[in-house]
């Protein structure tokens, strides 16, 4: 104990350096965690989090009882996670290989710069762009195709719309990581394969793809921890938070945001959040464990 204190005193400068970030995390990450006890309380605004009476697992019972909302948003959250992850990874890899194979490097560089731009546009701005394309009277799509589709009240179309927007937003950026792996492949491998008579496709299949597999695995596993989280902006802004679309666009995060504004039953919402956080935590621990087994240098902890 004494040597420990001595060590701390010796490193007092480091303690002081770590302090500001420590405090910011304490007040803006750790203290809010305690707010989750609301999940076990019947929250009363005037009594505050700690003063509100306990109600055991009432909120969770309510959660399971209100099947329609709860199941719908959980289903949507999972559905979009799978679509975005599978399609996104596939497109990231395809784009990375395509750019890597393209011999006009200057041209590829300019194209890549343009492809990355969308990720830097906030969804608050993106929704106006989407509106320009799909609004009923003035939208480009309806005009070009001579149709009169009311996109903002047709829920069944939104999985497609949101997927297109999400891919537009993230694929260019997502491919950067895979490109850095491709840049590290020894060109002699390709040359040897070519001498052995392998064509382009076979080279990609036997050299490029295997080189990408570790990174793909790691990225997929690490994304598992976010299975219950969504890009709130996409679901809240781009859909204009339109109630008639909720059946296909309401995800847990956008539901929580709405609940805060509507001042609805906070205990119930906290129960949802707790459910979301715990599932996320378990999956993250699981995924990290797997990554640590297969590729220790890429595990998070």
């Amino acid at each position, binding site marked *: 104990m004494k040597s420990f204190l001595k060590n701390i005193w010796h490193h007092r400068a480091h303690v002081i350096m770590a302090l500001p970030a420590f405090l910011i995390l304490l007040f803006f990450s750790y203290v809010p965690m305690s707010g989750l006890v609301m999940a076990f309380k019947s929250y009363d605004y005037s009594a505050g989090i700690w003063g509100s009476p306990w109600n055991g697992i009432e909120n969770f019972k309510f959660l399971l009882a209100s099947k329609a909302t709860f199941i719908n948003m959980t289903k949507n959250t999972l559905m979009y996670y799978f679509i975005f992850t599978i399609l996104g990874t596939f497109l990231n890899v395809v784009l990375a290989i395509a750019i890597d194979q393209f011999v006009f490097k200057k041209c590829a560089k300019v194209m890549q710069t343009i492809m990355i731009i969308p990720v830097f546009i906030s969804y608050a701005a993106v929704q106006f762009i989407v509106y320009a*394309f799909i609004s009923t009277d003035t939208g480009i799509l309806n005009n070009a195709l001579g149709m009169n589709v009311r996109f903002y009240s047709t829920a069944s179309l939104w999985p497609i719309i949101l997927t297109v927007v999400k891919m537009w937003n993230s694929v260019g950026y997502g491919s950067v990581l895979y490109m850095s792996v491709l840049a590290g492949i020894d060109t002699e491998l390709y040359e040897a394969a070519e001498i052995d008579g392998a064509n382009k496709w076979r080279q990609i299949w036997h050299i490029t793809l295997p080189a990408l597999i570790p990174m793909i695995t790691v990225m997929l596993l690490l994304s598992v921890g976010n299975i219950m989280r969504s890009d709130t902006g996409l679901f809240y802004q781009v859909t204009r938070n339109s109630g008639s679309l909720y059946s296909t666009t309401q995800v847990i995060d956008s539901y929580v*945001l709405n609940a805060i504004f509507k001042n609805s039953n906070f205990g119930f919402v906290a129960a949802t959040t707790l459910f979301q956080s715990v599932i996320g935590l378990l999956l993250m621990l699981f995924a990290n464990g797997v990554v640590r087994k297969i590729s220790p240098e890429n595990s998070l902890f």
Partner: protein
Amino acid sequence: MSAKKKMKNADLVPSRRERKGVGQYILGFFLLLYTLFCALPILLVFIAAFTDEKAITQNGFSFFPEKWSLAGMNSVLRYGSQLLTSYGVTIFVTVVGTLLGLMVMAMFAYAISRKGFRLSKFLSVYLLIPMLFNGGQLSCYVIFTSYYHMKDNVLLLILPLCVTTMNVIILRTYIVNSIPLELMEAAKIDGAGEYRTFFQITLPLLKPSMAAVGFMMATTYWNDWQNALLYITSDDKKPLQLLLVNIQKSIEFLLNNANVPASARAAMGGNIPQYSATMATVIVVIGPIMVIYPFFQKYFIKGLTVGSVKG
């Protein structure tokens, strides 16, 4: 890296990388298509902003408008002082948040990477937990507003986004892998204290990594609408993104309330948002990032790569 590759290829003619067959042009065509898919929606914003309002309401949005006009851009100026204020708020939040975040995270990363510092293990775990588990928006909202009483406080736009686990890991990885320990030890032998070693030796060497992290942080701050929507109520603290959200909300309001009396519409004066003006506002909001981004591209690409590898 690439220079070395070229040297290697020089003796093999024609090399794999230099052969320009038909396949390359087909590939180029598809890449061009995807580039257009990314670029055209953004181009549309610029075109719509300079399209005559009547052309939009009658014929809809178009890449080839019948009539151009500067009215949209001009009417953005009607938001005038509010736009200026919002710009000020956003710039303040972005600059202060990024600089503060970089400083505290670099110090933290430096501290936990010191050998022999017995608290570093604890601090690493302390850093990791918020990535695994968090209270969620609702808890944050209740704690920040009811307990910290920080509703409508600009600090809430800055502090919650200030320290992120991933960014600290990126900085720490860079310190451990790319800054020679000998350099810092030499400084200490020459009599520099801990602080001086950090500020005069480590910090300058940390620049490439800080550029990457800093750029990512800056875009996060610039694009944050959620915290603003949750916490900011007064006009003089509204950042640009909240302005966009509000414009959308007022459009919605007018659309859904066709029977808003004429007098009320008149009272809103020039504030009834029009398509071209809205698009012009979007340009004003996203413009700065699009101008700055190409200069930082190489840094954040490097940062992304480093971030994928644990320290």
